């Protein structure tokens, strides 16, 4: 049923693109940003904020990542991967809860 959902398919295509297309940041770094796991300071702080408290991001967070050697194009990609990663987790969590609720309904 989910495979027939065009919205879901379009989201999967977006996830696939940001993780796997040739970019300026390595695919490994992008996967780490997507999963918010395994990045080094100060990039880890910026990406963690993108995922958990985006409204608290400041100019200093991006400046610190640039000072540590990230180019603007790499930051563009890594921030997008982090944002898409968190939205993918939320989407999955919602769909899983729905599947559980409807399966329980059918069983009951």
């Amino acid at each position, binding site marked *: 049923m989910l495979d027939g959902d065009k919205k879901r398919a379009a989201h999967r295509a*977006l996830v696939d693109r940001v993780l796997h297309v040739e*970019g300026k940041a390595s695919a490994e770094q992008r996967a780490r940003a997507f999963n918010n796991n395994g990045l080094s300071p100060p990039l880890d702080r*910026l990406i963690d904020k993108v995922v958990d408290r*985006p*409204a608290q991001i400041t100019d200093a967070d991006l400046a610190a990542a640039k000072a540590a050697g990230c180019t*603007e194009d790499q930051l563009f990609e890594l921030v*997008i991967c982090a944002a898409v990663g968190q939205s993918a987790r939320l989407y999955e*969590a919602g*769909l899983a*809860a729905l599947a559980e609720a409807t399966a329980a309904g059918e069983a009951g």
Partner: protein
Amino acid sequence: MRLDVLNHGYRPGTKLLFALIRLFSGHPVPDAAKVVFYRPDFYGNRAKEFTHEAMRGPSAWSVGDRELMAAYVSKVNGTAFCIGAHTATAGQAYQDQARVAAVLADLESAPIAEPLRVTLRMLGKLTREGKVGAGDMREVLAAGVSPQQVRDALAVCAAFNTTDRLADAFGFELLSLEGFEAGAKYLLKRGYR
């Protein structure tokens, strides 16, 4: 925006397009639109497809309902740019700004149908806490929301949890009220593609 490439790094044809939009609309291109024009093969093209499908594709939710979901998710995230943009768009779609303002002020007392209220409540919990359970979904279904409507609402939630984060991280510049209203008119006429 906080990255110079997002302010100045566009191809000549794109810069010309931005200038023409500014000339004919009387408003600068909003940062949310600029971002999808920067290296569109990386993010913009597929992001536009997904967002358009979520917001304007077939659904039992109206366009106004989905714009309200976008505004509500943005309110939970505290993303000022997207609150402004989608408050204006939902208000124009419903032709009822007061209803949108009431939802954003207090979901529980707002004058909206119960299925929409419980769906917004679920999207708010998912966005705030990062998780929802089967019990939350059963409440939504019990209010008369179909499983497909839940899936459609989750797609809107995913789209705006992405855009909100980009708005806050890249520092989208807030528009004037008039600018948000002009953007809303465009989004209702043309969608997100």
